């Protein structure tokens, strides 16, 4: 079940991807699951084997700690306000990017305080859209995390 809040008659997704850094092993499976879920392909090996992957979630850390970083779907997203192409919008609680409009200026990279956006293979920006519109239907990083370090839950106040 997806936690949703009602506002003005529309349902707003209040769930976000969170990481418990004490449990994260830094195995990077989330990166592979993310890249596969967004590849549009049905076979994981075919989609990823021998290729440079462009996941929308990234493991960072050092020898002591590791954790995954992906879009926070901010209450007041500065990327939306800053996009020079009007390509980023927030609807129903999810920050999305219209790739057809993106010109690759990287202004969103300059303003995102979480470092959550990066260009994909063709220089067009991509970001976590919670797998709500791909074949996975729920965050693939969460579903595939072997240590359940990544969770998808509602921790917040209504917007």
């Amino acid at each position, binding site marked *: 079940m997806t936690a949703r809040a009602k506002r003005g008659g529309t349902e707003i997704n209040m769930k976000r991807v969170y990481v418990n850094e004490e449990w994260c092993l830094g195995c990077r499976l989330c990166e592979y699951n993310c890249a596969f879920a967004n590849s549009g392909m049905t076979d994981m090996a075919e989609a990823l084997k021998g290729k440079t992957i462009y996941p929308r979630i990234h493991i960072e850390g050092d020898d002591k700690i590791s954790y995954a970083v992906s879009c*926070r779907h901010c209450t007041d997203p500065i990327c939306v*306000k800053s996009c020079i192409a009007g390509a980023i919008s927030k609807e129903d609680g999810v920050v999305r990017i219209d790739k057809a409009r993106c010109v*690759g200026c990287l202004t969103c990279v300059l*303003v995102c305080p979480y470092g959550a956006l990066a260009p994909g293979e063709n220089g067009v920006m991509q970001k976590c859209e919670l797998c709500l519109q791909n074949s996975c239907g729920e965050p693939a990083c969460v579903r595939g995390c072997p240590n359940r370090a990544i969770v998808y839950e509602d921790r917040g106040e209504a917007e």
Partner: protein
Amino acid sequence: MKNYVVIGNGIAAAGCIEGIRSTDKESGITVISEERHAVYCRPLISYYLENKTDIQKMNYRPEDFYQKNGCRVIYGKRTVRIDCASGEVGLDDGTLLPYDAVCCAAGSSPFVPPFDGLDTVEKKFSFMTLDDALALEAAVTENSEVLIVGAGLIGLKCAEGLSGRAAGITVCDLSDHILSSILDAECASLMQKRLEENGIKLMLGDTAVRFDRNTALMKSGVKIHFDVLVLAVGVRPNIAIVKEAGGETNRGIIVNDRMETTLTDIYAAGDCTEGNDVSSGTKRVLALLPNAYMQGYAAGVNMGGGSMAFDNAVPMNSIGFFGLHAMTAGSYNGELDEERSENGIKRFYIKDDRLKGFILIGDTQRAGIYTSLVRERTPLSSLDFDQQKKTAAYTAFSPEKRRKKFGGVV
């Protein structure tokens, strides 16, 4: 019910409309648009020439934007005055619009120095508006030699946009390096190399002084033949309406963090304003799209009866040419700390335990982490900046800070 008047129809105006509607869903909004276009993404005009976008995609908002927000747009008219005593805005056709609150989002205009012989040049253009881009598109052919005066953001984006359309492009600038408003000489030289590798000719430390039809006489005495001339020397904020109404102006219209001018019920936002820059602690014209939107939005919220301060503005730019990106933010007025790698240069300016500004060229990954240090004035002693400057990441912060950033709704 109130009457809101928005002077201008660019990004700041769109922000203002959305800001007003976040607090006042009922009152009327009149938008005065000198350009005969719905709000469009102005910085995309060079991408249009490059065929990276099209007119349809350049619309900043959906077609029903004005209708949904209850706006009446008056196209093709110019605002000539604000009469504070009568509470009316006057247009060039004599129309008077009564107001309860006004937002002046009039933008800026190209500055054209009084060159000798400019009137003899047949094909001359500025590069500020969609109509400028369309006119250039029509004028430039594959045989055209294009001369661009000004190697700043506008002139060079124009050069990149035209590079696949013209026989040759020359850009001249009196400054000894390109992008002198945002880059230092060394970083600029990296970008200059990239431009030259892609066929853009640069003449620095030299500029046109006189024109005779298709010839420019340069300061150095050199003569250049051109078919199409683009003047991108600089821009000036459109301050006249507020200045003549008695509002305080400098280079731009002076605003506080609520986007109020010194005149009652008159707000201003975007490229026409001079607001607070938290990185330098001074008033500055911050002519860039994100600030225009955020200023406009704050103005709108306050006009509509809400309360909002936009109090963490800093200058910032993300600009790329032929695949090489540069990002800058804040002010370069501290001690320099530098990181070099094979991918590029990072320069950080540090003062009083704060990151005041930076220049990144080539290596721009996750630059927003640096920008937020500037905007939020984070004490650098609260993180491991030696690690942070090499690779922007949250490992440099304490676990508590990380939990705050990543553990809840932000």
